[in-house]
Each structure stands twice: as structure tokens, then as C-alpha cells.
């Protein structure tokens, strides 16, 4: 694979205001193994960016770079045009970059309320955290004293999202929301994502095979072999998705 593999199907915004979050030619990996080979991603204010791709494409690593958990070995990670390579994860979280991790990132042995208390680290009061969480996810209010590990998969994801949103984030990074969940539950969760998006948050959501997210997203990208190969409108990406997964996209593979 040589040169820049990105293909712009639709220009996202012709006026091109400053992106809230931008990754430019990012290379990163684990130890000596490079996983990302030049990732370019622009997230505009109030935009939902769906990053799709098969297992091992580098989606979660991209999210780890965007949340400061992994430092890029090359390229620039910037927020509002300021390069923030090397920024501490907790500083990013306090500023307003929040991650909902893959596999229901909750503390299973703690109760719903105790999990929500974890969101008070940014200085938000527990009363505010509860108000915000229960207004958005009323089902959690009914189960406030229940041990989080005994909630259904969908409720656990709601709790993870509630905890993230309680910190009043400006950028939300969601990793594989649909993992291990029934399609009807996934549909309900995406309704919540759509509601959150209407509030004006900039959201990056990554998924393997989720057509549901394309209905919520403003822009979508297909990631393969550590690069975002296609960027465009969800409708166009939906058409491209199958051929990209099956390797019929005409792109050379490593």
C-alpha cells in the first residue's frame, strides 16, 4: 500500500471550520508492532463520525490515540487546531474528551449509583450526575441500587454512556456499542446516541458491522489495514461497505 489511501466521496464541509479533533498521518501501535499506518480523521463540531471496519483494522487503536491512551509514533493529534501529542489521558478527560470503552466499560461489582459516582472526578456533584443520567436513561433510576454486573447487556451500555455523559463531555468516543447485544437493544441504544448527537456533541463511534449507526452518523469512514480508506456520507459508505470488507474495492492489500 503506498501513498495516501483516503478517498473523499463527499466533501464534509466546504467552509472547513477548525475541527474539534483531528488526526493527521497518525502512526501508532503496541511496542514494536505498528497498527496505524497514517490515519487521517477530522471531527467537526456537532458531528457524528462513524468509523467502520473489520476486526483488526485499527479502529480501537485510533480511539486510544484520540483519547491519549496511546501516544502516536508519528503524525499529529490536535484539538481545535492545537497539537496535543503526548497529553495525559486524565488531562484530556478533564478537558472534555470522554471514552465509552468496548465491552461495557463499567465496574460490574459496584452498584449503578457507585458506578455513576465515578463520574464525579471532574468536579460534577453527585446530584447533577444522577439528574443527568436518570433524565436520559430512566431505566437506570429504577435499578439504581442494583449491582451493575447483573444488569442486562443493553442496560450496562446505558450505564457506561450515562457515566460518560455525566462528565459533560465536548467530544464523545464510543467503542463498539453493539458488541454482544441483540439487534433490538442496539437499535434502542442508537436512538440514545441520536438524541445525544442532537445535543451538539462531537461523537466518534466505531463499529464492525452496523448499518444502524449509518442512520445516525453525519459522516462515515471505512478503516482497513490501519488506514481510513474511504470517507464520505453514510449513504455512500453503506454502498461501499460490503465491497470494502470483501476486498473488492480495488485497493491493494499488504
Amino acid at each position, binding site marked *: 500500500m503506498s501513498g495516501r489511501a483516503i478517498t473523499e466521496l463527499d466533501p464534509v464541509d466546504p467552509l472547513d471550520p477548525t475541527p*474539534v479533533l483531528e488526526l493527521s498521518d497518525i502512526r501508532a501501535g503496541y511496542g514494536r508492532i505498528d497498527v496505524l499506518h497514517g490515519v487521517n480523521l477530522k471531527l467537526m*463540531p*456537532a458531528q457524528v463520525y462513524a468509523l467502520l471496519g473489520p476486526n483488526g483494522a485499527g479502529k480501537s487503536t485510533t480511539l486510544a490515540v484520540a483519547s491519549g491512551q496511546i*501516544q*502516536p*509514533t508519528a503524525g499529529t493529534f490536535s*484539538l*481545535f487546531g*492545537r497539537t*496535543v*501529542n*503526548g*497529553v*495525559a489521558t486524565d*488531562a*484530556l478527560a*478533564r*478537558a*472534555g474528551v470522554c471514552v465509552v470503552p468496548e*465491552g461495557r466499560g463499567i*465496574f*460490574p*461489582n459496584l452498584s449503578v449509583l457507585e458506578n455513576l459516582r465515578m463520574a464525579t472526578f471532574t468536579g460534577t456533584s453527585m446530584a447533577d450526575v444522577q439528574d*443527568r443520567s436518570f*433524565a*436520559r436513561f430512566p431505566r437506570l433510576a429504577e435499578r439504581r441500587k442494583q449491582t451493575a*454486573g*447483573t444488569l442486562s447487556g443493553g442496560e450496562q451500555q446505558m450505564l457506561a454512556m450515562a457515566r460518560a455523559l455525566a462528565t*459533560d463531555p*465536548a*467530544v464523545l468516543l464510543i467503542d463498539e456499542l453493539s458488541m454482544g447485544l441483540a439487534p433490538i437493544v442496539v437499535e434502542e441504544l442508537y436512538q440514545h446516541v441520536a*438524541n*445525544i448527537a*442532537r*445535543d*451538539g*456533541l462531537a461523537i466518534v463511534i466505531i463499529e464492525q458491522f452496523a448499518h444502524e449507526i449509518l442512520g445516525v452518523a453525519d459522516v462515515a469512514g471505512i478503516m482497513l489495514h490501519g488506514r481510513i480508506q474511504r470517507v464520505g456520507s453514510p449513504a455512500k459508505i453503506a454502498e461501499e461497505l460490503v465491497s470494502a470488507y470483501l476486498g473488492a474495492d480495488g485497493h491493494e492489500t499488504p
Partner: protein
Amino acid sequence: MSKETAGGSEVMSSARLSQFQDEVTKLKLKGGGANPERTGTAWGVGLGIVGAIIVVVSWLSAKGASTGTQLTAEIAALIGVLVGLVGVALWVRNSLTRYLRYWLIRLIYEDREQTERLIAAIEKLAEK
């Protein structure tokens, strides 16, 4: 950009974005160091070795020397000890941080796996 939330009481507006932009401007950067603890540990070991060398050299230079030279060697040795102590402190601090981070991650993963096993067992019992 100012839209009402599902709850209707809260507003995510450009004010939040401006606040975010301000906070990003204030962010302190560490210069892209991929592993600050590893760097800290290396500095600790390095300073420890330098401190020990200073102490040994001071000891050797003080042997059979005049009182004035011995006084200089003593001061140098004291500096060596201080450098060594700083090195040891750096090493302990960074090694502990690395170990505790690893321990915490392991604990969380084990806890999660155990709960999932427990839920699977309960679900299996419920099916019977």
C-alpha cells in the same frame, strides 16, 4: 449550535465548545513521551549510578590527601549521596507507578471476567 437535550433542561451550546477550546489551550503537554514512567525509571537508575561514582571518586581522592582536599572530597561525596538519593527516589516512584497501573488494569479485567463467568453460570442455571 444550541440544541435542547432529551431531558429538555440542559443545553449543549457553543459555550461548552468555547470552554473546551479554552481547556485545550491550557493543556500541559509532556512533549509526546510515549512512556514517561520508563523515562523516569531510566533517569533514576542513571542518577543512582552517577551518585555512586561521585562517592567512590571522592573516597579515592580523599585517601592520603591534605585536610583541605579531604574537605572538598567530603562535600563532593555528600553531593554524590544526594544525587544517588534523588535517583533512588525517582526509580521507586516510577517503578511503583508502572507496577500499580499494571496491577489495577489486571484487577479490573479479572473482575470483569469473573462477573461475566458468574452471570453465564446464573443464566445456565436459569435455563434449566
